[in-house]
């Protein structure tokens, strides 16, 4: 065999060895990829299976919540009136008045009174439900009823008039202390009265007899 043929034979053998090595390595790598994809598909299948009832459940939850919202909005508007209802919602959730109520399109154009500037949220809610305090009775276009940080007169005006504006008309508080005038007849022996009311004495003696029998 000529030398050139030997060299050619060696080159072909080298090519075959390289093909075998790299193709086998590629096959092994592809098998790893297949195994990894199988795991990924199993995980994705689990996700699909677990999320299958989500749509139905969430739709049911939303339907119930919508019914609740409709109920509460209707009740609030019915009891507090549109203006106060919008003001109450805007006081609890600032900016919510712009969105209005879902079932009351006119609420979007209702100007909300600034209820929350006078009362805290809890007082506000109770007051509106009880319809006791004249919250935002002034025009909504006017100034705030009270500066919550510094002012207190406007809030005082919401309470009974005598105690807040004319405290001098209230009866004086009793004087107490060492120089206070005697209000009651002093007793000589602690726990013993000098005289007992006649009617009370009679009734007590009768009850006592009945009790002992």
């Amino acid at each position: 065999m000529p030398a050139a043929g030997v060299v050619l034979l060696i080159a072909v053998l080298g090519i075959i060895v390289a093909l075998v090595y790299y193709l086998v390595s590629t096959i092994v790598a592809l098998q790893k990829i297949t195994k990894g994809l199988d795991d990924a598909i199993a995980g994705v299948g689990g996700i699909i299976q677990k999320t299958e009832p989500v749509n139905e459940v969430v739709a049911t939850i939303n339907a119930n919540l919508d019914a609740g919202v409709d109920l509460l909005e209707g009740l609030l508007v019915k009891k507090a009136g549109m203006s106060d209802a919008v003001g109450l919602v805007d006081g609890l959730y600032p900016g919510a008045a712009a969105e209005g109520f879902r079932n009351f399109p006119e609420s979007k154009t209702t100007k909300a009174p600034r209820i929350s500037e006078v009362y805290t949220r809890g007082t506000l809610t109770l007051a509106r439900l009880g319809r006791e305090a004249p919250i935002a009775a002034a025009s909504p276009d006017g100034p705030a009823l009270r500066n919550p940080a510094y002012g207190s007169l406007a809030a005082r005006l919401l309470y009974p008039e005598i105690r807040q504006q004319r405290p001098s008309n209230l009866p004086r508080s009793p004087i107490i202390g060492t120089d206070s005038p005697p209000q009651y007849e002093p007793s000589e022996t602690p726990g013993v009265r000098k005289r007992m009311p006649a009617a009370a004495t009679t009734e007590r003696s009768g009850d006592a007899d009945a009790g002992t029998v």
Partner: protein
Amino acid sequence: MILEWIGAAIVLLVVLPAVVYLLRGVLNAANSIVPSVDRIAAVAHAGSADLDAVPLLLTTQDQVIKTIESAADYGGSLDIIVDDA
């Protein structure tokens, strides 16, 4: 004879390195996919584990229904107790 030497040299010095280069590229590409697939599988398993709480939505659904029913009862009572605006 010279042509045979030229052919052998081409096969040995050109074809063999080209074949090795191309096959090595394919192998490197295949090997680079393996970590990505492993990460995808890990993420899929983690996502599936995160959804284990989904059945609790059924409990949430029942609770929402009960809550709305209670709110409806309470609202009905308020409707009677509190005067209309």
